[in-house]
């Protein structure tokens, strides 16, 4: 069936909750309201108040108790309402969720999933358009997943839920209702740590994730003068270095595209891997097309900040012509 991103994630949650009775969905307004983006719509009616829980308004409380629930054998799939409010729970992630297995020498584990709407492009209020995935990917022990569309999202969320360790699952909110695609009805898992070649090409590699996969594909499809390969990272951690390096070795040119601010972002990590392991295959310097090193502006100036097809296209052309 053709589903949008909201529907695909909803279906994954439904199917996994049916399969595994230990899953509980928890967060602010996830029950009666079905979540502010309606991603958890219908779960309360189907699984009841014990398993679909409207929590008090407290992100540290949500993730802190989810850590405890997970330690004691439940499978919490927690929602934080927006990317910009995950910081309140950051201490629970970095100090406990990510380390409990290591600290307890494997005795206690924290298989929890955090879902949060992520990224810009919807003209939202401040703190509702953040893309700080790098700070999570920087934490040893955390897995970080960002799907690029409905089909990817379903398979990646199912894998995330089945992971024995904590996963941060960021949902590109501007894609929630942007398009529909064919999503298989039956549950399927896309393993974490495997990038996807979204489009094959031979001259330039674009490495990207989340909503900018689609934007990059548009560029790749419309560009006449160069054949562009697009690699969708899908999971920043674990990171699939192999797929990226293979592509860059083939094309000899790399453009890294992300909407997060440039400095210290995950693009820098990818550029470092390329320079460590594929430098001699490069025909041109690695380029980054990113947000600027400022907080993402409010609605009126948002488009000046976000990488778009024209900025990506220009970078690809320059790299191709180098």
């Amino acid at each position: 069936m053709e589903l949008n991103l909201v529907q695909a994630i909803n279906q994954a949650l439904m199917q996994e909750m049916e399969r595994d009775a230990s899953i509980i969905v928890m967060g602010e307004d996830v029950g009666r309201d079905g979540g502010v983006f309606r991603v958890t719509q219908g779960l309360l009616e189907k699984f009841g108040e014990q398993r679909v829980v409207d929590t008090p308004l407290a992100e540290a409380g949500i993730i802190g108790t989810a850590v405890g629930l997970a330690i004691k054998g439940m499978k919490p799939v927690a929602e934080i309402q927006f990317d910009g409010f995950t910081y309140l729970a950051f201490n629970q992630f970095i100090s406990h969720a990510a380390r409990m297995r290591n600290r307890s020498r494997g005795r206690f584990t924290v298989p929890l999933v955090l879902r949060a709407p992520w990224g810009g492009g919807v003209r939202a209020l401040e703190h509702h358009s953040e893309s700080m995935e790098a700070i999570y990917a920087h934490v040893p022990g955390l897995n970080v997943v960002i799907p690029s569309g409905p089909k990817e999202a379903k398979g990646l969320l199912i894998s995330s839920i089945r992971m024995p360790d904590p996963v941060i699952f960021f949902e590109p909110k501007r894609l929630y209702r942007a398009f529909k695609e064919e999503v298989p009805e039956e549950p399927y898992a896309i393993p974490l740590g495997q990038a996807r070649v979204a489009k094959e090409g031979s001259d330039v590699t674009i490495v990207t994730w989340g909503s900018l996969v689609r934007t990059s594909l548009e560029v790749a499809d419309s560009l006449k003068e160069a054949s562009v390969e697009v690699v969708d990272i899908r999971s920043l951690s674990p990171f699939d270095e192999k797929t990226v390096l293979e592509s860059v070795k083939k094309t000899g040119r790399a453009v890294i595209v992300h909407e997060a601010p440039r400095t210290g972002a995950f693009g820098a990590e990818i550029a470092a891997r390329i320079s460590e392991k594929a430098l001699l295959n490069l025909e041109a310097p690695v380029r980054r097309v990113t947000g600027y090193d400022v907080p993402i502006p409010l609605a009126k100036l948002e488009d000046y900040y976000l990488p778009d097809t024209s900025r990506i296209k220009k970078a690809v052309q320059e790299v191709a012509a180098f």
Partner: protein
Amino acid sequence: MPKKIVFEGKTEYLQVLDENGAVDKTLEPKLDENLLRKIYENMVRARVFDRKAISLQRQGRCYTYVPTEGQEGAQVGSALALQKADFGVPSFRENAVYLARGVSMEQLFLYWMGNEEGSRMPADQNNLPVAIPVGSQVPHAVGIAWAMKLKKEKAAAITYFGDGATSEGEVHEGMNFAGVFQVPCIFFCQNNQYAISTPITKQTHAQTIAQKALAYGFEGLQVDGNDVLAVYAATKAALEKAYSGKGPTLIEAITYRMQAHTTSDDPKKYRSDEEVEYWKKKDPLTRFQVYLKGKRLWDEEYEKKVQEAATREVEDAVRKAEAYKPNPEDMFTYLNAELTQDLKEQMQEMKKSMEG
């Protein structure tokens, strides 16, 4: 050893004007005519602004808006009790607080229309800009009040937050600091019954929010938040206490959000029409109108004048705010005291990409 009681607390509820506008003479604050009219006119301004913002949002001329309707009594009553030197530390629903404290409608529209300039508070006013992360502004008010105490100023800080915010750790850390350091801070909680779809009964198992103050060693009280006189009186009393070094107060104003949580919310999913009707009868403007009429301060002609003035003000503000064009370079300008070399280069890069 027999058990003994080591703590007992009580929480009072204050109402001066009931929902029909009948006044309790023993509790009635003695306010002069000018102030009474100022209170009314500010409630009307807030409501006119609110309805305009909602309609602009529906027409695509304004982005996500956070409505105030129903909470004008709580906001105007508390804001007009403040002196100029007092510091306002609002959350995101405090349009009526900003307006009553002298922030222009144009400024507020700029903000809701997605311009950073909307957060530039006038230099002669003591208000922080909107704080979106729920409850995060509360410790700021405590710090501001602490500085006032250190500087021996006769002033106080007031912070606004909702019932939902009382679940956040930062709110409690702030209140605890305020108790420990005995700072001149007022914690003004507008309990409008919901945090988006989540009712207060799912937020706390305690009977009141006000009683939470007792655990931090200071006074907490409930007021009828739709009774602007009760709110004014309670805030004044808390301010006097603060000015004279007697520490913080938590005020829980019982009220109701008449509109959606934001313009992107659908309240039909979580509350009934009957409930909304029930609260409509408690409207803060209507009962205050009755009170003013009893004092011969209100008649149809006055009402017409007030409405017209507010409408003129709002139309003028919309015109100005819509004419404003933000400068993209400003996303870099205010980040730090000085533009770094990196940012200078990124600014150039942005300008180049604007040229296409």
